């Protein structure tokens, strides 16, 4: 038995890196400390896809990696409008090969940001993002706001490591000396901890942000007695709490990116932060979901110039979310083949988009069987990044951390599979004289 320390979790955007595990006989046998229940479950492992497979007459039939590579490359090379989607639950090294493959194919490359914080990116492109690393929040913040986010369930270590419950340099008393504000439609595990819980009406985030903005800019007189189900009194108190902060930190989740106003909600959230910043230090940070969704946005941006929804048909990057985002492409039934890696649109896309995905040839690269596997035509089992493979990832605050390899894998890494597909696609194109 070997004890491994400083293990980095490859589950959510918190990317906790102080986990201790035990490894025996090339297996993670125990997660001793550091991980939440969700991270622990990841580290301990699940049922795997056992073999590469190709769908024949509706059934997946096991095959060799060579056969699957050949089939995948043929599908992609023959496609006139391929979509390469996912990229968030893998490492940047694989993402880079993905961008190169997209460039070679003239494909659309999109990542899971388009169904989580894509609207946040659009908002940032509109107004910017006054933010900070999570350690700044840990050491300085005395007012924490979670808006449309439920970290107690979705990012279980977030409050303990970085925010409300953590202790830092100027916050050594921990939560005793901090205020927690939670804004949500439902009462959640997170809201139960809050000093102030603003239970707002569904879809009224924009109005409540506007009201707080108005108050912070000194225009409380224009705010009506009730906004989005919240009384003016509560809004005034919240604004006072924000103004009185030494350092305020807002975190927002899919509660605001997924509702009707989408990017407009986030623009308003950022504008509210700017308003608070006229009184004191205030920051705002999106609660990124997958452990490396921030990373694919980084890689895609430095290589193509744009973070997601990038069309490389013309040989240069054409960026137009809302037209080129995966779900849009799918409901228009535009793409004629797809490579899905490190994500599961079968579970997380609207049914309407899945319908088209189920019709076209789909190549899947993933360690685990999931709903996407049900309609995938070529399936590659891959090593689990952060357990069986190392590589770079970006935490939700864009801090790069290297995942550790804990055990050997019988499966190849994502990067290796993609490189082989890329080589094979090039060979096919070469033969065809392109």
């Amino acid at each position, binding site marked *: 038995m070997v004890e491994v320390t400083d293990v980095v979790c490859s*589950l*959510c955007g918190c990317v906790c890196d102080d986990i201790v595990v035990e490894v025996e006989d090339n297996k993670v046998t125990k997660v001793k400390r550091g991980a939440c*229940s*969700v991270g622990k*479950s*990841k580290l301990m492992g*699940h*049922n795997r896809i056992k073999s590469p497979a190709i769908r024949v007459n509706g059934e997946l039939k096991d095959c060799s990696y060579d056969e699957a590579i050949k089939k995948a490359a043929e599908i992609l090379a023959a496609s006139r409008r391929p979509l390469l989607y996912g990229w968030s639950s893998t490492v940047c090294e694989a993402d880079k090969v993905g961008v190169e493959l997209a460039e070679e194919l003239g494909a659309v490359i999109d990542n899971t940001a388009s*169904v989580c914080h*894509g*609207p946040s990116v*659009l908002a940032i492109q509109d107004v910017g993002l006054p933010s900070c690393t999570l350690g700044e929040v840990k050491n300085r913040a005395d007012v924490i706001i979670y808006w449309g986010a*439920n970290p*107690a*369930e*979705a990012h*279980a270590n977030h409050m303990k490591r970085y925010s409300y419950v953590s202790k830092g340099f100027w916050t050594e008393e921990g939560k005793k000396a901090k205020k927690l504000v939670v804004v949500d*439609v*439902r*009462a*959640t595990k997170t*809201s139960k901890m809050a000093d102030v819980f603003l*239970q707002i009406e*569904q*879809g009224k985030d924009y109005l409540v942000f506007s009201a707080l903005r108005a108050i912070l800019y000194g225009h409380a007189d224009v705010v009506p007695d009730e906004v989005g189900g919240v009384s003016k009194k509560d809004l005034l108190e919240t604004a006072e709490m924000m103004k009185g902060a030494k350092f305020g930190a807002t975190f927002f989740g*899919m*509660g605001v*990116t*997924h*509702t*009707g106003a*989408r990017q407009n909600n986030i623009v308003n959230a950022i504008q509210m932060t700017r308003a608070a910043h006229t009184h004191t230090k205030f920051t705002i940070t999106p609660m990124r979901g997958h452990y490396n969704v921030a990373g694919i946005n980084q890689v895609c941006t430095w290589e193509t110039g744009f973070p997601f*929804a990038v069309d490389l048909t013309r040989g240069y990057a054409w960026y137009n*979310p*809302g*037209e*080129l*985002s995966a*779900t*849009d492409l799918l409901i228009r039934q535009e793409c004629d083949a797809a490579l899905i890696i490190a994500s*599961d649109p*079968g*579970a*997380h*896309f*609207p*049914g*309407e*988009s*899945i*319908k088209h*995905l*189920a019709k076209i040839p789909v190549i899947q690269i993933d*360690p*685990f*069987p*999931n*709903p996407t596997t*049900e*309609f995938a035509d070529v399936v590659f089992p891959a090593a689990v990044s952060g357990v069986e493979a190392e590589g770079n990832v970006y935490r939700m605050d864009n801090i790069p951390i290297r995942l550790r390899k804990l055990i050997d894998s019988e499966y190849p890494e994502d990067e290796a599979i993609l490189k082989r597909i890329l080589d094979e696609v090039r060979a096919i194109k070469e033969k065809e004289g392109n």
Partner: protein
Amino acid sequence: MFVCTRYKWIKMGTKVNLISGRTTVQGRNLDSKLSEEYFDEVARCDLNKADLEKLGVAADESVKVNTSYGEVIVKAKEDGGTPEGIAFMPMGPWANAVVSGDTHGAGMPVYKGIDAEIEKTGEKVLHVKELMQTYMG
């Protein structure tokens, strides 16, 4: 009363505002979506006690969730934190069966704040594999 939508005619019954989102157990099974634990956690719809009573549904009984895009059968659960008129479904294949792919040019489907109608049903909840089969062909 009937309303014409882009997709089909739907019957307007017990109206709710449907939202979907993460839960701990759903997260724990992100890489294990074919498991029973995932099925039990995700193929469900949380409603306030008052709404359950209005529907005449007891906890763990099946309900059909209808939206202008589609319909899905899930188990009803009582949740005190969910306000009246709101239905919460853990994010996953069942919730998404009734989400429209239309992003209105934003790139992001509306996963939260969907007009839905809920009714009691005797129909069975489809397992993941069965549910995915409905997209084929």
